């Protein structure tokens, strides 16, 4: 960590942590004094963000095994079908279109080595 005269690796981070603890305590105290509490999530508003995060996690989990095109298509279908519930015909056509466009932009135009899964070769 070092001393003030010879600051080392941990010098700034240690100081910052102490400052952070002090600020956080001050914030907690000031909140506590006001004493008003609003519910963090009103009714079921947490559901849609949670579904979004879960979908993102699943996407990262399977993209290397299933490949980019299939995972992306599934992601779009599930997102629009489960989170947004839009009309199935629109959902399928938009999903197919977006997957194709994203593949063209990243895979072909920008030459990102996206994992291809079953579509290899």
């Amino acid at each position, binding site marked *: 960590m070092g001393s003030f005269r*010879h600051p080392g690796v941990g010098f700034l981070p240690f100081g910052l942590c102490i400052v952070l603890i002090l600020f956080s305590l001050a914030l907690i105290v000031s909140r506590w004094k006001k004493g008003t509490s609003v519910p963090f999530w009103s009714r079921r508003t*947490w559901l849609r963000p949670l579904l*979004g*995060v879960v979908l*993102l996690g699943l*996407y990262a989990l399977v993209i290397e095994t299933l490949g980019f095109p299939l995972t992306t298509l599934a992601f*779009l279908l599930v997102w629009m079908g489960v989170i947004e519930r*839009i009309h199935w015909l629109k959902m399928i056509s938009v999903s197919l279109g977006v997957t194709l466009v994203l593949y063209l932009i*990243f895979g072909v135009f920008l030459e990102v080595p996206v994992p291809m899964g079953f579509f290899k070769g």
Partner: protein
Amino acid sequence: MSDILGMFQGLFSGFGIALTLTNLSFALLGALLGTVVGILPGLGPSATIALLLPLSFKIGSPVTSIIMMAGIFYGAMYGGSTTSILVNIPGEAASVVTCIDGYQMALKGRAGPALGVAAIGSFIAGTVGIIGLTFIAPPLAEFAIQFGPPEYFALTLLGLMMATLLAGTSILKGLIMVVLGLLLGAVGLDPISGEVRFTWGLLMLQEGVDFVTLAMGLFGIGEILYNLERELSAELVTNKVSHLWPTLNDWAESKWAIVRGSLIGFFIGILPGGGAVISSLVSYGIEKKVSKHPEEFGKGAIQGVAGPESANNSAASASFIPLLTLGIPGNAAIAMIFAALLIQGVQPGPFLISERPDVFWGVVASMYVGNAMLLILNLPLVGIWVQLLRVPYAILAPVIVLFCCIGVYSIRNTVFDIWVMGVFGVIGYLFRKVNLEPGPLILAFVMGPILERALRQALLISAGSPLIFFKRPIAGSLMGFLLLFLLIQIIVTLRKKWRVRSTLSGA
């Protein structure tokens, strides 16, 4: 004082760079993208530039990629007003106050003049800002060349403090975000000794937290998750927009508002922590104060549109000054451009103009061109952009998430980064839930390494004596200014508390 002739020569060569076909098309692309994200609520310029950071690896030339990103930033200032006026939802943060009078004008059937005066005001103010940038940046950079570590420490500290105090609603929350940002910036190899910090043994973290991953998570994913809670539906006041060109009467009423807005925006834009959002708020307040009919504000006063919309554009141009001359970004969107320059191997700072004149003058010249493009895009073609508001968020949201995922993946070709981005996304969402602004965090993250290196180098020079920050004239005056600024803030806060208490006891 560097000579005026040199500046004209620089500008001239800059136009030579900006007017090549590639750079013109990327300036147009940036202006188009900026207009689009400005119009679409729930996607701001910071998030968009973050989204495009991985692309800047592919573009190759630093001039071209910065031209595009700058275009997105000032283009969004044009687009934002459209949504504010027609839908009463700010298209992006700097157009919040435009909702107040712009929407009222639209309700009274004066959407056309409101949009027109916003676009013309934006163009005039944007150009004023760039003229200021052209002639103030070179002498400022020359002056900053003599800065050593103590000066840099004082300057970054001042910048960070002003950014938190000016930007946020709560000073304490802003400071917490700054400290968090500094800590995140410390992950990885220590800049001076090369030792490893905060990696929990994870090899992937040794290079530090990647800026793109952090920015995309906090701004991209975080914003999407937050918007998922609410139904964002845009209802247009009117489908037909006519009489875009303001009448002589409108013009007479708004011309001084545009002039005042341009100047206010410029001076606030230069300040670290200033920028488009605050300048539009200040301009609205001033217009209301100087107006002979303040009672018209809130009921469709054209000055309430002209002033703020001008101010945010000249602030957007002016905020390039601290970035390109001192290497210090003043707001989140500029921090993204800072990162893009670093990705391209260009070090923003006092040596930028002399070492990479092509980057500086090319970008500055392209901004003149870009503003002219935006005037055309936003006046006759505004009807086309309005149709964009019909694209439902249900389709937009998953597409943006996918863009973030593939963008982050493309940097190092690892799924690990998608996970990290997801984690920052959740954090960004929770920040928004508890009213913590992610802006100061990203600024602190970018400035952290500069601040730490300057602090430790300065203390090494002075053999540990902190007096080094006060003895040298420039560092000393900066620190003095910082202390004065803090003192004023404390007095203002105390006076407010005292007033509340006295009214409470009086009642």
